[in-house]
């Protein structure tokens, strides 16, 4: 199946000389939730802005649902909805009017039934006649999502949708994103909350300093890069790691009560069995043990640090 968005050799250098994107290639699949991870200033918003037509690319091209976003912008943009990072709304408009405005702007005839459904889905129906300036930040965020969904887009961009959002709204938003995906909408979200990507995404791309350093299925990524840790709770504190165990990647906690062994869960030989035998030989007893898989956060931090 053709990718719904195909980014080719896309680069952006701002007038200041700052190179925000360095010839990126990326394919987004039909109907997936794609999470774009990266630290601040990595180029996430620039990438989204180019696809949506807010920023002109310096080089390269983007095809969205078969349409070049520059040459055939009309057809491309009609398919796309964007929820930007900043909360920008017209203070004096009502919720109903601003969402209806968006639908018209995107070239769709009025459809009160659809607007009503969107507002109800986002728990905004009760506020439909309220002026935007009277709404809380969380409500404004919902309004911006409603605006983006007003013209029934096939592709939805959510730029940091849950930045500064309370837990409840965050849950609602995740549920909404899943419900949208179930209707066939492709969703691209940027975030620097890694748990969000872990929770939501089918695939994950990591962007840093204008380069896409990794694109992977989430599950595969977690497997591939996932390191496991074995934590041993010792019977008595150790002053230092015994010489007999010096060949192992071991760390001793500050109080000497914990020994942490890091290993590759995918490896043929994890080395756990040998390590435990050696511990016995060295006369080190432990009262408890646990293993844990590193989170996406650890993976991400490692990736970005490696390239720094």
């Amino acid at each position, binding site marked *: 199946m053709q990718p719904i968005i195909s980014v080719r050799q896309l680069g952006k250098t701002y007038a200041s000389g700052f190179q925000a994107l360095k010839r990126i290639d990326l394919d987004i699949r039909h109907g997936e939730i794609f999470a774009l991870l990266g630290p601040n200033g990595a180029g996430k918003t620039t990438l989204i802005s180019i696809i949506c037509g807010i*920023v002109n690319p310096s080089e390269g091209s983007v095809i969205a649902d078969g349409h070049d976003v520059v040459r055939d912008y*009309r057809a491309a943009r009609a398919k796309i909805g964007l929820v*930007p990072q*900043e909360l920008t*709304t017209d203070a004096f*408009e009502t919720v109903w009017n601003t969402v209806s*405005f968006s639908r*018209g*702007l995107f*070239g769709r005839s009025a459809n009160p039934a659809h607007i009503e459904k969107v507002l109800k889905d986002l728990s905004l129906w009760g506020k439909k006649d309220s002026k935007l300036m009277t709404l809380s930040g969380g409500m404004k965020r919902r309004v911006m999502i409603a605006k983006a969904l007003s013209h029934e887009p096939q592709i939805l961009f959510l730029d940091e949708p849950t930045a500064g959002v309370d837990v409840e709204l965050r849950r609602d938003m995740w549920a909404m994103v899943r419900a949208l995906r179930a209707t066939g909408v492709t969703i691209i979200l940027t975030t620097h909350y890694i748990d969000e990507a872990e929770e939501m995404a089918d695939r994950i791309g990591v962007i840093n300093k204008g380069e896409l350093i990794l694109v992977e299925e989430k599950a595969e990524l977690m497997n591939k890069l996932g390191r496991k840790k074995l934590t041993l709770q010792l019977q008595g504190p150790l002053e230092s790691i015994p010489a007999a165990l010096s060949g192992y990647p071991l760390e001793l906690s500050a109080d000497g009560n914990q020994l942490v062994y890091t290993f590759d869960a995918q490896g043929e030989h994890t080395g756990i069995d040998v390590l435990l035998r050696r511990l016995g030989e060295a006369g080190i007893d432990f009262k408890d043990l646990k293993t844990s898989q590193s989170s996406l956060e650890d993976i991400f931090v490692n990736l970005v640090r490696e390239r720094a």
Partner: protein
Amino acid sequence: MNIYAIRAIYLFEMARTWRTLLQSIVSPVISTSLYFVVFGAAIGSHMNGIDGVSYGAFIVPGLIMLSLLTQSISNASFGIYFPKFVGTIYEILSAPVSALEIVAGYVGAAASKSIILGLIILVTARLFVSFQIEHPLWMLAFLILTAITFSLFGFIIGIWADNFEKLQLVPLLVVTPLTFLGGSFYSIHMLPPFWQKVTLFNPVVYLISGFRWSFYGVSDVGVGVSLGMTLVFLVACLVAVWWIFRSGYRLKA
């Protein structure tokens, strides 16, 4: 053609007008009425007519032009500047709309607003002085053409401005002086010969002269020249707008 988008922008902008009715319509009407009280009734009654037209009636076209120019510029410049300022411009830029459609929406609304305002002032003026309109169709044509041209000019200013000061700068330092010196309150034949020549470099002279001709059949410069100059300015603004959208100037980083 994305008619729905033009309609959405147009109605959005017009809604802003009704919301700010006092500022949009009432205040220019009040200030124009004051001009009539002072220049028309009080001072005008002691003055000789110009070109056979009583002074009070003579200034009617000039006053309407004054409001038309300043309101067209301020409506259109604010209309596009504000979304840029608060950031809601993202939606316009990401929508499937062409430059032409964006301009049609914003400039159409700004021009409509100042045309309505011009007509209200015309009616208000009738309460103070009596006058006739010899060429009503030409009067409307000049009114509409000028409103569109200066709304385009305002749109350009709104895009160019990156702070509120700049937004006020051009109307205050350029347009208001040019309008006052462009024959709103006098015929340029009343100036010394040297200044008559200088004043011909003021584009507003042609607008006011042509507009006044449509009322009284008298003008400072030929009506064809007036029409020509208005069209030249219109085309210049269109070229500037075309360039803005082509280059992404101040809109797309």
